[in-house]
């Protein structure tokens, strides 16, 4: 955030340093950061830390429960679940992170524009958003799969497109709200150009809900990637992603519960950590949250 009128805090400390100090004071957020970093590291180092080749099958060890050799057990093709969770972090973190980032960059500017400009611009953007929300995800995914070919990146694109309307709506709602506050009216009266108002006054207000939604959307994206891999988008077999591991586990929920539990736990931990991290970030960046 730039040091503009509203965030004028009577301190000598630079905003970046202040944010960092606030963030570090937030113990849970730091824990979240550590977990997220651990997963990113695990994804990056998977080739070296995974005990087994994630795609190496073993017909004599099909659906074996966790043991000393296979800490998380083995899957329907006798592959090591732990190694697949580690390798799967790559596809799943990418699918989650990139598609949500894309949805944000696609959705937020349009939402801000709609909320701030109002009038026919708002009408147009809002109705297109309604139309997008009404298109079934499945159709979009199948059409994209056929058009762009099967690949993880195209799955991310499909997820991003279908996740973006929610960001448009959120940004629009918050922008409308912010526009009506005294600050913005005052800033406008003072002759500030609209883009500066948007940046300096509206954006800080909409960051918290967007951050919350983005961290939640990551969970949805990780799970959505799995259903896409069955439509020909997404991670291609035999390479693992957490979502596709869950999908494969669906047939064996009673016979081999570990096949579902570990990738499920990985998703939960990452989502939890990202949300905690998000909380910390919001506190650190929120110009109004003082005294904590």
């Amino acid at each position, binding site marked *: 955030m730039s040091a503009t009128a509203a965030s004028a805090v009577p301190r000598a400390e630079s905003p970046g340093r202040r944010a960092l100090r606030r963030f570090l004071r937030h113990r849970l957020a730091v824990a979240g950061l550590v977990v997220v970093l651990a997963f990113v590291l695990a994804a990056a180092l998977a080739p070296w830390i995974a005990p087994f080749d994630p795609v190496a099958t073993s017909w004599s060890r099909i659906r074996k429960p966790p043991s000393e050799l296979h800490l998380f057990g083995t899957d*329907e093709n006798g592959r090591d679940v732990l190694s697949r969770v580690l390798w799967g972090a790559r596809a799943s973190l990418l699918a989650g992170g990139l598609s949500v980032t894309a949805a944000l960059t696609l959705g937020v500017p349009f939402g801000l524009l709609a909320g701030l400009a109002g009038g026919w611009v708002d009408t147009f953007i809002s109705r297109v958003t309604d139309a997008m929300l009404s298109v079934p995800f499945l159709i979009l995914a199948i059409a994209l799969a*056929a058009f762009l070919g099967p690949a993880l990146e195209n799955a991310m694109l499909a997820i991003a497109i279908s996740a973006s309307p929610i960001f448009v709506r959120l940004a629009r709602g918050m922008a409308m709200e912010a526009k009506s506050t005294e600050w913005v009216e005052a800033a406008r009266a003072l002759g500030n150009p609209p883009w500066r108002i948007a940046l300096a006054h509206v954006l800080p207000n909409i960051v918290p809900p967007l951050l919350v939604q983005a961290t939640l959307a990551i969970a949805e994206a990780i799970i959505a990637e799995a259903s896409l891999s*069955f439509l*020909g988008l997404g991670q291609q077999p035999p390479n693992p992603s957490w979502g596709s591991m869950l999908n494969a586990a669906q*047939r064996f929920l009673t016979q081999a519960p570990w096949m579902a539990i570990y990738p499920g736990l990985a998703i939960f931990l990452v989502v939890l950590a990202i949300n905690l991290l998000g909380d910390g970030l919001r506190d650190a960046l929120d110009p109004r949250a003082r005294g904590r």
Partner: protein
Amino acid sequence: MTARLLAPLAVAAALLAGAAHAQDRPNLRIGLREDPDIMDPTLARSFVGRIVFASLCDKLFDINDKLEIVPQLATGYRWEDPKTLLITLRDGVTFHDGERMDAEAVRYSLLRHLTMQGSFRRGEITDLETVEVVDPTTVRLRLKQPSSPFLSQLTDRSGMIVSPKAAEAAGRDFGARPVCAGPFRFVERIAQDRIVLERFPAYWNAASIHFNRVTFQPITDSTARLANLQSGTLELIEVTSPSDVPAIRRDRRLALSTVEGLGYWNLIFNIGNGPRAATPMGQDRRLREAFDLAIDREALIGVVYEGLHTPTAQPIPPASPMHVRELRPAARDVERAKALLREAGVRTPVTVDLMVPNSPETRQAAEVMQSMVGEAGFDLRIVATEFASSLAAGVRGDFQAYLIAWSGRPDPDGNVWTFLHSRGAQNDGKYANPEVDALLDQTRTESEPDKRRALYAEAFRIALTTDRARLYLWHPKVIMAYAARLQGLALLPDGLIRLQGVRLR
């Protein structure tokens, strides 16, 4: 659950049906793998639809466990000459609307199958030229040419006789309220929820029917379908996931029935369908043989299908008298496979794209193959594709290899001709060999079983052992699970559910 069956409408219908005996007979609820398509025998396509038809519409003939043709609405048949078939009909059979099932109705139904716009039966009985009513219980069918598969078509939807009056009145909407001559009549259908049939008191074989009402419920998720059986809300289910079988075997309240099916899974190689056929795999039979040698069917079936299915190297199932016994799958031989690849002079690993429709089991089977052929020097790349997209890509030739199933027909012709003949509509790989074409054409006119089997054996020797047009993998078993109280269920290889003689204790 029972409350749903007591819907006011249902009560009214039951009263009309003469509810005097209704209390004696229980209801039966059957879980299907998916929602059937239109319930008009002329326009229907789906396999699950055939399961419902088995209770709704009787056919001229049926099959028995040896796949022999036995009478149903007919009482017998006689070939007057190779192109003339005389069929005698059961007397005193009525349709669900009370109309009489006679030679005129048979003529009407066969011509409807043959001429109705968009009829999916036309291809099955295309050899039929005319139908003559000899007397009310006799029809004479004249064929354009001798046809050995013809009679067997009358054991399936092409042999279903519909009420001419109801069919005329409903036109193309007949499927919304089908009127046939089967053991149960149509009550209602709620799409994707249930199809309800009730006992037809005037059924010609009514004494063999011990249920008042049959409800077919589509439940797509196999675990959920089994849960319904376990909790007693269904009495009989199709089992589509062999991994459920051990749990069913352990449960004393449940029973399991399996039978050798008519269908198969196979791998189609793109040999001549468009530019994607121009690969080493599509052009060199040695590579396809190496691929075959690299696969251990037994092991694959053990891993993916609990060892239930039957390995094969041909399209005709062991249940059929036409099965070519000498043609067996080769044992896995990775060294020989590698040698063949060297002989072919290709650089390993040989990359092969394998298109796989998107069911979890199919995908697992592909993954197992991927790992097996990998050892022989193939880099098998699995292209998981949504089913409808894969059908389209198959027709277009947009594939190198395609893993797909065929549900199977009682007569071998339905499992072979259209897939291996150069003019076959389902020959997606566009394999073409005039010798094979000639042999397959002969199988259609040869009526002597031993000679016909010899023709198939020769055709397979060329098309499969030599040319390696397709790679046949396994025949799936038909698997049904049901409450142990259900007795008398006899499964036939076609996988249909025949309720004659079945009781609930």
